[in-house]
């Protein structure tokens, strides 16, 4: 079955170029021109990956889209869709965003600057999808008993409570559970 890529991009000239690149490589490409249409489309199409232009109808539309998607996924099993951000912004902001990749501030898988060489785009897409596949295979290994739905690669972490000074030892956590513990205030160190 063909891999489905959803592109959320308001510049139709840009999206048509990217669609051509993807379809030539055998992907099925669906384009939404706004964050709102994009959200509806995700539910209808259930893509394998989302290419998201961070600057849509307004400055925060892209970020709101990400927030929305990630919240939805908390309540549905196995529904973490990898997201790659596309943007034409440069150095300063771009570096800040790259630093936040994968953290709860910017829970997306990758960041690419426009314009993007066709080969590089395909490479990154394949890498991200492959990473998700390997993560899915190991999800059964996540040892967290609090969370219900897991996503992200499973790695070994050390958990410590800085308030009570209790050392909880080492666990296999998926990315989501590691983040949840971090948000709760534990010191979660990747080993």
């Amino acid at each position: 079955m063909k891999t489905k890529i959803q592109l959320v991009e308001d510049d139709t000239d840009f999206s048509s170029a990217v669609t051509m690149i993807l379809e030539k490589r055998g992907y099925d490409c669906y384009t939404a021109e706004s964050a709102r249409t994009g959200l509806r489309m995700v539910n209808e199409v259930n893509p394998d990956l989302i290419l998201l232009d961070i600057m849509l109808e307004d400055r925060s539309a892209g970020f709101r889209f990400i927030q929305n998607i990630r919240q939805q996924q908390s309540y549905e099993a196995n529904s973490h869709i990898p997201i790659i951000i596309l943007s034409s912004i440069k150095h300063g902001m771009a570096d800040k965003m790259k630093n936040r990749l994968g953290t709860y501030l910017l829970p997306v898988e990758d960041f690419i600057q426009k314009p993007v060489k066709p080969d590089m785009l395909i490479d990154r897409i394949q890498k991200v999808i492959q990473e998700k596949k390997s993560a899915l295979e190991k999800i059964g290994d996540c040892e967290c008993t609090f969370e219900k739905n897991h996503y992200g690669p499973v790695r070994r972490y050390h958990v410590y409570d800085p308030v009570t000074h209790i050392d909880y030892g080492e666990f296999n956590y998926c990315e989501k559970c590691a983040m949840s513990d971090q948000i709760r205030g534990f010191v979660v160190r990747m080993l």
Partner: protein
Amino acid sequence: MSEIQTRTKETSGENKILIIDDEKIIRESCQEIFDLNGYQILTAEDGHTGLDLFQKERPDLILLDLKMPDCNGMELIEDINANDPNCMVIIITGYGTIESAVEAMRYGAYDYISKPFTPDELRFVVRRGLEKRKLVLEADKLKVEKQTLRENFVSLVSHELRSPLSAILQNLMVINEGLSAEISPQVRNILDKIDHRMRGLIKLVSDWLDASRMEEGEIIRSMNPIDIQSILLDVIDLLKPLARENHVELKCDIPESYPMIIGNAETLHMCFTNLIHNGIKFNRPDGFVQITLKDENRLNTVTIQDTGIGIPEDKLTMIFEAFFRCSGERRINGSGLGLSIAKKVIDAHSGNITVQSKCGEGTIFTVQLP
């Protein structure tokens, strides 16, 4: 009582006046005079209470008796100024001497009034003081607004300019890679030229936005002790591939350790990148660019010397202007903004940049930073 309070709120807005005078009669009569104007009046009978009240209430204007026992009026003015330079201090002098008034103004007082004074004289001087304060606060607010507008403008323009360029280049890539149809070598040739010029355009937009974003005040505000020699070494490292491509050697004479200087790392990095990049671009094959760092006459001096094509003498003064490029150098890529950005950065650091050049031999740029 409540009527007066309401009037105060309606008419005075933020007009709060603090009267510091040891004579009760002065305090009371001032209060009476201003009650009719609807200002909010606070009083203190000595320097200490006055200063406390000032810090707590943040008045717009202070009427201060210069000669109070146990109080050094000048010191008090200094303290007030240090705390809130926009608070207008009007001193009341009882000796009718201009000297003490002038001295007080040197310490930071805005105006003076000498005893005995009529109510009208007092109202006049206070009104002037309040007006000045209003203007100063407005100017500050406008400055902040201007800065925010400028930042918003730059990021908006940045997006508006870069988006179409990205779309064009992306489509160009699709054609170039034969993704939409087969293309002949001639067409590919033309497309390569278009690609080349588009990238030049994108660089121009980036550089211009860099230059617009760099406001002198911003640079000055974010200065820290920095390691200038590691900045230079990093720039040289980043430019090594370009130098190799152009068959130009990068020679550096930079001491292993050099004392830290106060500056803004990001902009200095940009500045030296532009200068050394120029040295490489405008060079001849098998030429070199020599970068030295040393302390010369207590000034941190960086010299960038190249064996390039040089700059004609009559153009030497114009090279730092934005978009200036020597005629005949259009074939060498560039936005024409590199040197003007570099000069802006050096100016913000209170430094100096000079150039010596001989056509056909080379150019030396000397940057001096305090």
